[in-house]
């Protein structure tokens, strides 16, 4: 079946070579060019660079890149609040690329409810550092020392002189805002630190407030794409055949038992793994059920 061409993402083609996992603001249909590209390791962007985590576009939009993925726990929304807090920008100006291994740092995936407690640490530090760098740029631009400046809603201004302001967008104007960060830990525990200091929670205005979850409306409206919604040209379907209990060993597979099923492609056997591949999901389901497999007696039968 043909993939929906409207959903192909040119950006991914440019970064071809990586295997795309996870989902978020990104659509899921993988461009054919990407599939054709060899799956060599593209290398994760280095976490030591600030611009591997955060970019400020010409129009002041903030793009954050994180190796975490939104799978229904609301992390994208929570991350947006934390970044908006430390950077002093409106929360809806913060967009994310999540879990794309070609363009995000390796934060070890998601698991164990650690995305907020651990995975957000580098994002907060990066946002605080970006704000500190912007203050340095603004000090030069506005001719006032950093300690005379304050930030709010994507703007730097001189305290007690509201006419002297400059926006983040004007300060960076699409050029790279960058700095070297100190990296510690890896995977779930990956952290980076730069010149920025985190705010005192007593001064929070965004974190701790309730903002709508970003993924709920697209889900209820039916436009959100889950991993199971990936379709690629020429895609086959697979199903696993399992024994009736734990510890059974594979004795024999009779492939002839399913050869008559229309759309059946092949049976895959590796050690004690048995699976079938077919052109349609229904053919795969039928073949997995019909395949004659002989297993040794299981050590433990499922209830």
């Amino acid at each position, binding site marked *: 079946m043909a993939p929906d061409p409207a959903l192909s993402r040119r950006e991914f083609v440019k970064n071809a070579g990586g295997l795309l996992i996870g989902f978020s603001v990104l659509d899921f249909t993988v461009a054919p060019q990407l599939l054709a590209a060899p799956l060599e390791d593209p290398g994760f962007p280095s976490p030591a660079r600030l611009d591997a985590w955060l970019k400020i576009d010409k129009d002041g939009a903030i793009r954050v890149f994180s190796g975490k993925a939104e799978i229904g726990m609301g992390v994208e929304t929570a991350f947006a609040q934390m970044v908006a807090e430390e950077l002093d920008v409106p929360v809806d100006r913060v967009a994310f690329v999540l879990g794309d291994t070609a363009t995000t740092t390796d934060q070890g995936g998601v698991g164990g409810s650690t995305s907020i407690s651990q995975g957000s640490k580098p994002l907060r530090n990066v946002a605080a550092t970006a704000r500190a760098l912007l203050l340095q740029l603004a000090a030069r631009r506005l001719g006032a020392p950093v300690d005379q400046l304050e930030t709010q809603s994507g703007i730097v201004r001189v305290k007690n002189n509201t006419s002297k302001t400059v926006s983040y967008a004007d300060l960076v104007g699409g050029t790279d805002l960058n700095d070297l960060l100190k990296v510690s830990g890896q995977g779930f525990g990956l952290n980076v630190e730069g010149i920025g200091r985190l705010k005192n929670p007593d001064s929070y205005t965004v974190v701790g407030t309730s903002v709508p979850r970003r993924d709920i409306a697209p889900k*209820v*409206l*039916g436009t959100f*794409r889950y991993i*199971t919604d990936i379709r690629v040209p020429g895609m086959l379907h697979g199903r696993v055949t399992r024994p009736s209990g734990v510890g059974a060993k594979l004795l024999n597979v009779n492939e002839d038992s399913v050869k008559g099923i229309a759309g059946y492609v092949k049976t895959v056997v590796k050690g004690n793994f048995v699976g079938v591949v077919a052109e349609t999901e229904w053919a795969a389901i039928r073949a997995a059920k019909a395949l004659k497999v002989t297993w040794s007696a299981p050590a433990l039968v499922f209830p």
Partner: protein
Amino acid sequence: MSRASLKVNGQVHVVDVDLDSPLLYALRDDLALNNPRFGCGLGQCGACTVLVDNRAVRSCMLPVSRATGKEIITLEGLGTPERPHPIQKAFIDEQTFQCGYCLNGWVLTAKALLDKNPTPTDKDMRDAFESLVCRCGSHVRIFAAVRRAASDMKRSA
């Protein structure tokens, strides 16, 4: 394989399928409609729900042969991002669901319920939702959303 014609969300589609194949796979794999979802494949969870002639039906159990000539509605056909159905709006306003994988079943079953019974009691809802599964435990907000949808729809009726 045979040709079957299916009327989905107001449009007639001709698909090449095994007529014994459950409707779910024709909708997902042949028509690229993502919202009828595979949860159990056994009629036990409701993730695959569609409306067939205004009744909430589990598409993993309904052979294509029994869906032809019927009016099939999926979540895609309920409302659009520009014009969400009042039930969708209520579920969004209540910020219902965590992962949302189950929501297709709840939203469409709520639609079938409210079409028949615009002022359901909590007991009516529990009966209608009897064998829908939500592993994330979003039930309290689901009930709040259906109550909100009922009152919104009454007000605008």
